[in-house]
């Protein structure tokens, strides 16, 4: 590749990224305007509170997913990690606050083990991330099922409601937690050598290795980060409802990937970031909330969400084509 073609490719890539951001922001604006016209109750304080909570839940899981996507991986075990956090917090505490700290530490420890397993399979055995994290998902699900005799349910300690159901100065705690974690993640990815190594590893692992980047360690760290953040999201959502809920993993597993992809983080690694993911998180959460208020049924919601994700992936593909042919 000559300097000229490299320059054209960079410009095309930059234009593609900018277009995705503009499109996502445009999507948010369109939904917000539509909500103002069709469902004015969208802007009521009760609904906004709930919307902010949902942004917090999806956002925390999506930050972790973004780290993994940036190194060209994918984490399908996020849902299982959520389930693990809920089950551990319920089973070890029996719904009481006394052993909450122990349960949280145990959940984090088990989550790190799960993350390490993902990393071990991907880095150590070169198993494709899709397969490796799916295996971990299945393993954790099986473990939960065996532990709970097939009945993963129960109460979580009321103390957890502080991270899911409460507010501080009128602002729901989930979004506060998300904002703090977002700031930390943005700093780490944007201002530290570790962050640069994450991008370099995702963009070109071979070149990164030759440049002295500890690629294996970097990839490993992203799976650990994703696992821990998924567990935190799990604890937050448990605190929101107060119950262990099988269905939770369903939504957040999907939404965490969707938010990152819609925001413009590339599935091929090396491009994107938590800022873009935040845009995706807001778009997904606002869209789900708006459709819910509209009374659109489950099938309609899935169709529209699916269309938005398709659009995002199509834009990614278009950006790549432009870069390759530019």
């Amino acid at each position, binding site marked *: 590749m000559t300097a000229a073609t490299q320059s054209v490719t960079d410009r095309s890539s930059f234009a593609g990224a900018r277009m995705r951001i503009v499109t996502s922001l445009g999507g948010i604006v369109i939904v917000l305007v539509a909500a103002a016209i069709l469902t004015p109750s969208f802007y009521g304080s*009760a609904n906004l509170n*709930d919307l902010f909570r949902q942004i917090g839940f999806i956002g925390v899981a999506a930050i972790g997913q973004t780290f993994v996507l940036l190194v060209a991986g994918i984490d399908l075990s996020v849902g299982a990690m959520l389930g693990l956090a809920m089950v551990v917090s319920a089973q070890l505490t029996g719904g009481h606050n006394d052993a909450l700290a122990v349960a949280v530490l145990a959940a984090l420890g088990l989550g790190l083990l799960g993350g390490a397993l993902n990393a071990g399979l991907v880095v150590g055995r070169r198993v494709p991330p899709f397969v490796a994290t799916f295996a971990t998902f299945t393993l954790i699900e099986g473990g939960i099922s065996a532990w709970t005799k097939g009945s993963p349910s*129960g109460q979580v300690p009321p103390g957890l409601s502080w991270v899911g159901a409460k507010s501080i100065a009128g602002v729901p705690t989930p979004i506060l937690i998300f904002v703090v974690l977002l700031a930390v993640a943005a700093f780490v990815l944007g201002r530290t050598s570790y962050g640069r190594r994450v991008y370099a590893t995702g963009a070109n692992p071979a070149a990164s290795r030759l440049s002295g980047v500890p690629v294996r360690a970097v990839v490993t760290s992203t799976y650990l980060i994703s696992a821990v953040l998924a567990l935190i999201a799990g604890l937050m959502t448990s605190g929101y409802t107060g119950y262990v*809920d099988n*269905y939770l993993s369903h939504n957040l597993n999907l939404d965490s990937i969707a938010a990152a992809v819609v925001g413009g983080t590339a599935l091929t690694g090396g491009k994107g970031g938590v800022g873009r993911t935040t845009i995706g998180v807001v778009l997904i959460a606002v869209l789900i909330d708006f459709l819910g208020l509209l009374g659109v*049924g489950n099938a309609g919601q899935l169709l529209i969400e699916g269309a938005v994700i398709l659009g995002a992936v199509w834009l990614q593909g278009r950006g790549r084509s432009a870069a390759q042919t530019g």
Partner: protein
Amino acid sequence: MKAHRNPALSRFAVLASTAALVLAASACSTSRQVGGSNSAAAQDCGGKSTAQKQIDAVWQKAGANLGLSGLRPAETNVCQVDTSKYKKNGPYTIAYASQGPTNSWAMEADYFIKNEAAKQHAKLLYASANGDAGTQVNNIQDLLAQKPDALIVQPMGSSVVGQVRQAAQRDIPVVVCTGRLPDGTPGVVSTVGRSYELQGTLLATWLAKKINGKGRIAILSGIPGVPTTEYEYQAAKKVFAGYPGIQVVTRQYTHWSPTEAKKVAAQLAVRYPNLDGIWTDSGVSETGVIQAYQAAHQKIPPMTGDSSNAFLRAASTASGVQFAQSAYPPEQTRTCLDTAVSVLQGKKVANVVEVNSAVYTNAELAKYYRKDCTDNLWIPTELTMAEAKKLKVC
């Protein structure tokens, strides 16, 4: 919570959906079942009035508990089946193709049928489908290979019809337990369970009368397409259609998830403030409604559901909440086993056995709420405290 909540399958579907998402499409599926009416094979079937009387009695008792007189089932094809051709001497070997303990309801249901088998001195061949229809197909094949005297199926879907037909070809009587198979499935001697139509009709009638036949109500159903969801909804819809003053403003699905229910209910409170009533098919959904309305500082409208300790705990924290509950008891699997034994003893059995259950309102909250037990307990329970502790529900 119902027999056919299916987290394992749902999670598989999640992964499948995730894969599709990554490949640029997103779709979600959950277990789907094709339901049939409660009719069994027509051969050797008479005594309609006896069978109908039993069903009428169940409906009347349920209605009476809520102060509703004249609650009657629709005309159905019910009868007494002559089972003399299946008669044999015990002890019996009975195969049980179970849903598997995928939730606390199913865990208790398994416990009850195993206990009942021991009491009846029957050998129970047990196979768990883990909530998966495909697994259940294989399970039934394996169970039939062990030459049981009878087969009890807790069906995960109509995909097991072929295996049930095989049982019929081998002269093995089949009892369908807490679920349904398509109309006319050969080999099905009896279908045992709490009637979906009764649940839907009973709770809708109570709600309609509670709001004096007029007002705006919302419907919260479980998983789209699942018979438990759809049959109960259809029955409720029929009742509400008889009240021109009642407007059903929306129907939403909670997937029998407390989180989803809370989310949906929070939006209900915003979109339709001052609803007059909420009809739900599940205590899980009701729990979410209470939480959401409490968070929104709104008055909780009268509502309905089945009977879980989780809901009763939530209701005990909400002053003045009005509700009606009709239990979907895990204990009904005992009746499934008893019916299978009756068939093997050559006794006449009804082709449709509707099960009684506890029906009550908020006036009896203190009587039914088990503060000493966990949210996993299904109310009321016939478990002893020792059994409940063993199952970790108390």
